């Protein structure tokens, strides 16, 4: 049963977090281009934001099945896992509190007045998206290296 839970956890991480990482990384660059007033870029921007929003919700599956896997393996108290969970919580907080609201604000501003939006906002958004990506990369490496772990799964 552990193998099934782990398979769902890894699949969900690839399918849900992958699109968020790519779409959120593309968002600031497309936002800069959309500022020139191109309606096509604005449509792309809306799609990217929708991908981020929907797959962030689907991403709930990742920590839930991760906890179930850890509980099944009996490694919930391990230091590497506690560190991973803390970093995952930070990444989720960055995504939900910093990245997604700023994407919404940027999208709203560009839809109304493309010429008058704040040019520094895409740069700030790119910084927060980078923070999110780094956090997820660190968690993924921790999941593979598992310093101090003795389980063979």
């Amino acid at each position, binding site marked *: *049963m552990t193998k*099934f*839970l782990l398979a*769902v956890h890894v699949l969900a991480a690839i399918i849900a977090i992958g699109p968020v990482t790519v779409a959120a990384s593309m968002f600031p660059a497309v936002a800069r281009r959309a500022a020139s007033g191109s309606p096509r870029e604005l449509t792309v921007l809306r799609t990217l934001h929708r991908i981020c*929003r*929907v797959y962030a*919700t*689907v991403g*709930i*599956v990742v920590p*839930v*099945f991760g*906890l*179930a896997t850890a509980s*099944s393996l009996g490694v919930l108290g391990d230091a590497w896992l506690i560190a991973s969970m803390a970093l995952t919580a930070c990444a989720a907080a960055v995504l939900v509190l910093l990245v997604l609201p700023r994407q919404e604000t940027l999208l709203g501003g560009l839809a109304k007045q493309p010429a008058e939006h704040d040019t520094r906002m895409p740069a700030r958004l790119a910084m927060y998206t980078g923070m999110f990506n780094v956090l997820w990369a660190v968690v993924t490496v921790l999941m593979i290296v598992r310093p101090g772990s003795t389980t063979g799964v």
Partner: protein
Amino acid sequence: MGSPQTLRVAAAAEAGSLAVLLLNLVTVHWEPVSSVTGPVHGCAYLFVVVLAFRSDRRAATRIASLVPGIGGLLVLRTVEPRSRRPAEPASSPTPPSEPSGSRRPRGSRWCVPRVPPA
């Protein structure tokens, strides 16, 4: 995501998985069923909470979504109290006596009148 259909699926999964968990607990108590259905129920619960917080700003809906097990069904009751009734068949002609509908757009699935026309 965020549509009433998604909320309905999440609510059904939340209540259904809890029923499976409880049934398993009082009958065979098969461990693999618990270890698979448990996370499924957890996911469905969190989906309901996220969807409810995103789709409705009312405190009643948000608090209802936090109720374990039946939170999703409670949210559905508060969000779409009229849609549980069967919708009007599309082929039925609209009677001429019906008021022209100052409150609802004709054909809206969400605003079926409470009193069917005579």
